Structures are given as C-alpha cells and as structure tokens.
C-alpha cells in the first residue's frame, strides 16, 4: 500500500489560496522533494499533513488511514515525525533531554509522576544523537547550539518515534555546504534501510537534485510540474517559471569557471 496519499488538497487564508487541488503520493523508502518559491504553499502543505493545519477540502491518508482533521499528536502516534521550518525544540533542555522527551512520549510514559525521568531512555537518546552527528554536544542546552545543530536535534526528535513518514521542512538550513551533503546522505540511507518515506522542502537545489527520488514543483499553491529530478530540470514550464534564474546562474557560473581554466 502507498505510504502517503494526498488528494485534492485545498486551503485558503482569507482570500488567498495557499494550496489548490494538491495531489501527490510518497512511497516507502523514497525521498520526495517539494520545491517552489517563497509563499508557494510548501509549509502549508507540510502543516496539513502534520496536522498543524486543517484543510478546507481534500484527503490525506497514511497507510490507508485518513489523518486529516486529526491533531498532530495523534498523527505522530500513527508514525509521522517532522521538523519545522523554524526549528521547534525544548530550548531550556539539553539535546539529550529533548530526544529523551520524544522517546518517553513514544513509550507513553509522560504522565508518570514519581520515577525520575533523568535516566529514562537516555541511552537510546544518545544513540540517536550519535546517528545525526551530535555526539559531542549532547549535554549542551539546545538554546546554546548553532542553528544547524538545532536542526539535527530536531531530526533526532523526529526519528525518536520510529516514524514511517518523515516530514522535513528545510532540514539543512543553517548548515555549511559540506555538512548539507552529509546530512542528506544520512537521510537517504535511513530512508533506504528503514523503509521510511521522506517528504522534504529545501532551498538548496543541489541537495534537491542530488538526493530526491522525485520532485514536486509548487507555484502559487499549485503543483505545476512533477517527476524525477532530471525530468523536472528539463521541464520548459519549470525553467521559465521557477528554475530559470537558478539554471541560468549556474550556467553562467560554469561558463565563468570554464573561461578561467
């Protein structure tokens, strides 16, 4: 069964339609990129799938179960982990405590009133932080971490629920170029090994075209193109409407480098 099915999603804020008739699917083990200019409706789509927003119309199904109009906490329990465009973490806690919190919630231990929580799920949390490359900073308060590292904490939190579907809103924001590639590589291998479907947005087009299995191009709330990275790059409409500046700039840069050599 298809992991995530989104059908005819529609959402308007006041008179502005942020999502018009959006339909797509995400399979297990694949990375689907949602790209588009600012205000295209990427975060709106994410927030509807994650349960933070309710759509005006349309269906969202996870493994055949409708999750639309369910609260985020219920959607999480059905196997959707997510990160936010503006990272959402527990800033007064250490990185480990952040992940412990998510693990404790997964184990439905959060109404425990007596036993100390300090050691509960600590080893598992440390293992997850190792996985995302944060072993060294695990006992630092999240409020003191660099933004790229906070994004890693968020990823570890999202993974703590052993999700089937990972929603990642700009996972590499705030990271240096080299780190971005490594993090995307990690996500790809996690998706392959664990059969996790990944839906992500990203402004770094290199990351998108290097790692995505499929790409959806969103402009003014509508999906205007979809396909493999190569197909999307070749799409004339996309080139004109959105990628034009990107491809152009890149070609110009390439020419310049060529001229210098």
């Amino acid at each position: 069964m298809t992991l995530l099915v989104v059908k005819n999603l529609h959402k308007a804020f006041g008179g502005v339609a942020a999502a018009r008739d959006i339909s797509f699917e995400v399979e297990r083990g694949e990375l689907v990129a949602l790209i588009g200019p600012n205000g295209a409706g990427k975060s709106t789509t994410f927030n509807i799938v994650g349960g933070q927003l309710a759509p005006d119309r349309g269906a969202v199904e996870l493994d055949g179960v409708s999750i639309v109009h369910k609260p985020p906490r219920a959607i999480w329990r059905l196997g959707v982990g997510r990160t936010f465009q503006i990272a959402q973490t527990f800033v007064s806690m250490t990185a480990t405590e952040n992940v412990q919190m998510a693990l404790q919630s997964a184990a439905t231990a959060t109404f425990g009133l007596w036993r100390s929580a300090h050691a509960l799920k600590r080893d598992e949390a440390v293992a997850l932080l190792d996985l995302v490359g944060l072993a060294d900073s695990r006992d630092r308060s999240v409020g003191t971490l660099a933004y790229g590292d906070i994004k890693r904490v968020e990823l570890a939190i999202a993974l703590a629920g052993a999700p089937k579907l990972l929603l990642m809103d700009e996972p590499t924001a705030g990271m240096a170029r080299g780190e971005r590639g490594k993090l995307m590589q990690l996500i790809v291998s996690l998706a392959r090994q664990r059969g996790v479907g990944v839906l992500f947005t990203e402004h770094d087009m290199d990351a998108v075209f290097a790692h995505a299995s499929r790409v959806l191009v969103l402009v003014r709330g509508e999906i205007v193109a979809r396909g493999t990275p190569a197909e999307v790059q070749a799409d004339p409409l996309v080139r004109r409407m959105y990628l034009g500046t990107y491809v152009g700039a890149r070609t110009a840069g390439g020419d310049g480098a060529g001229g210098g050599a």
Partner: protein
Amino acid sequence: MSLSFMIAQFLNGLASASSLFIVASGLTIVFGVTRIVNFAHGSLYMLGAYFAVTLMQPLLDLSRSFPMFLLGLLVAAALTGLVGLCIEVVLLRRVYRAPELLQLLITFGLVLVIEDLVVRIWGPLELLGPRAPGLRGAITIAGSQVPSYDLFLIAMGPLVFGLVWLVLHRTRFGILVRAATQDRDMVAALGVNQSLLFTGALFLGGALAGFGGALQIPRAAASPQMDIAILTDAFVVTVIGGMGSVPGAALAALIIGQLNAFGIALLPKSTLVLVFVLMAGVLIVRPYGLLGRPEPLSLRVAVPEGFTRLMPPTPALWLMCGLVVAALVVLPLLADAYSQKIAIEVLIFALAAFALAFLIGNGGVVSFGHAAYFGIGAYAAGLAVKRLGFGMEAALLLAPLAGAAGAAVFGVFVVRLQGIYLAMLTLAVAQIVYAVAVQWIEVTGGDNGIVGVWPARWAEGRVTYYYLTLGVSVTGIFVLHRMLHAPFGYALRAARDSAVRADAIGLDVGRLRLLAFMIAGAATALAGGLYAFSKGSIDPTLLAIPQSVDFLAMLLIGGIQQIGGALAGAAALHLLRVWALPLGDMWRMVLGLTIIAIVLVSPQGIVGGVAQLVQRQRRARTSS
C-alpha cells in the same frame, strides 16, 4: 417589568458603560503599546478622584458654574496623566526588557505605594466631592426619574471615544500607538523613538484613568479602596474587548454596563459572578477577546525569560535541604511562641508558593488567581469542621480534594488560552470564587467569614501544630519536587518551551496543563487548610487579589529561575511583612518599595542573585 423601569435600567447601564469605557480605554492603550499589564491603572483612577475632590471646592468657590466643574475634571485628568508620565520615566522605562511577570510586579508595588500615599495625604476616610452645578436634578423620561448627571456621563462616553479615535487616527502619535499595538518590534526597527511613544502612552492612559476617576466624585465618594475595585472591572472590560483594542473596550463596556444594570434587577446577588461567566464565555469562543488579535508570533529561539531551568538535584543540594529541615526541626526549642506562629505561616506559604512555581515556572501556566485555591482549601476545611462536623484530619484531607476539584472545573477553560488571556482568566475565576465567598452569606458568613476553626485536641499545642505543618509542608514540597523530575514534570516543561513541538511528538498539552493545574490547586488548598486551622478563622481576604499577588511576589522575589526560589521568597516576603506591620500605615509603602527595589536591583530574585554571585566567585577563583 414595566417599560419605564426598563428604560431607567437601560440608561443606568449606559452611564456605567461610559465610565467603564473611559477607564478601560486608558488601560488597553497602555497595554497595547507597552505590553505591560498595569496594575497601577486603578491607582491612577483613584488619584484622579482625589485630585478632583481637592480641586473642585476652590474652583467652585470662584464661580459656581458648570464650566468651572468641567475645568476641574480636566485639570484632575491632566495631573493624573503627569503621574502616569512620571511612572513611565522613573520606573517602567527600566523594565521593558524584563520578563512580563516582573513588570507586572513592579506595577503592583506601585499600587501599594500609591495606596499608602493616598491614606497619608487625604486620610483613611471616604471623601465626598461636590455635585456638578446645573446637573443636580433629575429629568423624567418615560415616567421614570433619571439623574441629569447620568445623562452627562452617557454623553461623555461617546465624546471620549471620539476624541481618542481622533488622536489615534489623525495624529502622528496616534498612528504610532496603533502601529506599536500591532507590531512593537517592527515600529522599533523603523527607528521610532520608543521612549517618547511609551511616555506618551502612559500620559494618555493616566489621563483617561484620572478623568474616569474625577467623573465619579458626584456619584460616589473617593476612598482608598477604590483602586482594586475599579481595576478588576477595567481588566474584565479590556479582556472581553480584546487587549489593546479601544473599540473592543467600548463594545465590552456597553455589554457589561447593561449586564450589570439588568443583572442587579433580575439576580441581585449574582452580578459579580455573571460578569466573570460572561468573560469566560467570550474567551472560549474568541480566545483573544471580541476585537483583539493574536499576539504576533515571536520567532526567536531562546529560553523563555524568567522561567525555571531544572537541574538534577546534586548531593550538595540534598545536603543543604537536609540542613534546612534539621534547623526547622530544632527551631521550636529555640524560638518563642510568636516566632513559632510566624514560622508556621512561613511553612504554609512556602508550600503554596512552591505549588505556584510548579505551575508557572515549570509549566508556563501563569496564574494570577492562585489565592482562589488557597481560599478554597481554607473554606473547605473550615466548612467541613463547622457545618459538617468533620474532624481536623478529615478536613485536611478534604481541602486538597476541593482544591483539585475547583482547579479541574476552572482549568478546563483556562488551559485552552494563551499568555495574558490565560492569566486574566485565572484572575477572573479567582474573583468569581471571591464573589461567592462574600455574597453567599448563609454558608460562608460573607465578609465576616467563619470563626472557631480549631485543630483537633492532640494538635492544639502550638509546638505540635508547628510539627504537623512542618511535616505536611515538607512532604508536599518533596512530592511536588519528585513530580518535577518525573516524566510528567519534563513533559510539562517541554510543553512550556514549545507547545507546537510538544504536540508534534505526541504530548497532549491541554491534558498535561490541566493535570498540573489540579496538582498545584490541590497542594495550595492543602496549605489553605493548614492556614485555616492555624488562625482559627477564615475570611474572604484569603481569596482576594492582593493575596494572589502576594504569592506571585514570593515567587519572583525568591527568583523564578531556580525552583527553590519560591521557598526563599515565601520566607523573605512574610518576614518582611511581619517586620513592617508594626509600622502601621507604613507597611504597605515599605512592602511596595521593597518589591520595586528587588525588581530593579536583582531581577533574578534572591536565589538567582546568590547563584550568580557564587558563579562569579567560582569563575574568579578558577581564573586566578
């Protein structure tokens, strides 16, 4: 109900709506611009009334005419505006960057200082002002007598609304005020001189409060108690209308004016309750008031200022706690009877304040009405003993159950809200409980309360009761502390740091907060029960706003970033009060000035300040 009666009540309602609006519009403008909930707004209203009483007689002696009366009103308003201006320049300007709770506390410090000054200058008795020349009589409308002064008031409401509207829409200052109300950071980023804007807002707010107070003198005498009374009304109007919205305040004032006028006629005993039920109802349907807007989302990634960081307890901390408890155990051997009584009170307040720290510091649920649960516990214990014939032991078991039940009923509504609206609803709920205690005389004894609530025979001795209190308080604090470090406490703190993230990892934020509200309510009510038996009597002041502010002050004076701050704060505040009480009238002034000084000098509170000193010394030692 006859038509003429309906018309009379309607006009009466309009007159009180006018007065309410004038006061509330000032409060809402000040909040909109500065984001400070100004508890001293009621004090400014009171000052306006006293200024008018003082000015009016000499002015009317010059010429007994209506224009002279009007001049008196305007001068009183302008003087009050100047007081507001001074408050901004001297105090508020220094705390705009401080946590909201500290700002609130400093304005409450001002309430105490101004109340004391008023008693000093004008005396403790009520002062009746002269009546307005030319408006002394009554006019017959549809067969009922309507005082002409009421008609004047009815006209003043729309007039002031029109003038405020003109100021807000036709002057540069007004446009900046509206812009700052919508997005303060953006206005600052555009290079607007903020201190000038804030000073202006406080002048305008103060003048409106003063005008409102001055307008009342022909109807009601000026008294040193009028500040808190009007404050609650003004809060309710601004919250129902939407904080920061002047048209909202007008709409809310109209509704409440009519509700009061007809409510008194239909259900004479329940008007207070009716108003707060309306407020709760409005906030459930519209969580930001009738015409208010949600606060712009803050995008910064930082520890919420002034909230507790929780560290796993260290051996040194346990040792210190052990020493304190040991000292408390031997205390009765060294102290006289009076000191033992004070110590009992400190222990009781420590438990209640710790419960508040549990709720506010760790849970981020800012309660302005903590006294409600203290009072519910005290009344539950007192009523159980006096009316149901319970023993002390059973009554002390009943108290926390009553507190938890009360917190559950109110909490269902409270935990749905955010920020200042949540805080205001807790205040409103506390006022409902207060109103019930005052008005349901057959059961609660009204203002006189209940007397003769004595402990069981075995606990009668002061030393025995001291040990009972010590045992219960220390156990209560220990249990709350366990909960803070258990998964529940963690989850509560997580929900405080980021409700969005908490929800996205499966935490039910509403249920967590509700349970926290109930636990804090139960612990506070237990403290209230202990208090009832220690005093032998109960009265509604246990439930009143000043008692709630006391608990907040304990928390903040002790320091909210360390969970132990509440305990130190409870001891410090109560000892200060005991020390200042023999000063007679002066104690309010001393207390107010101390609160202001602590906020200005050591905003981290006593424990926070000490922790900082220790850290600095440690750093100096390692670097040398």
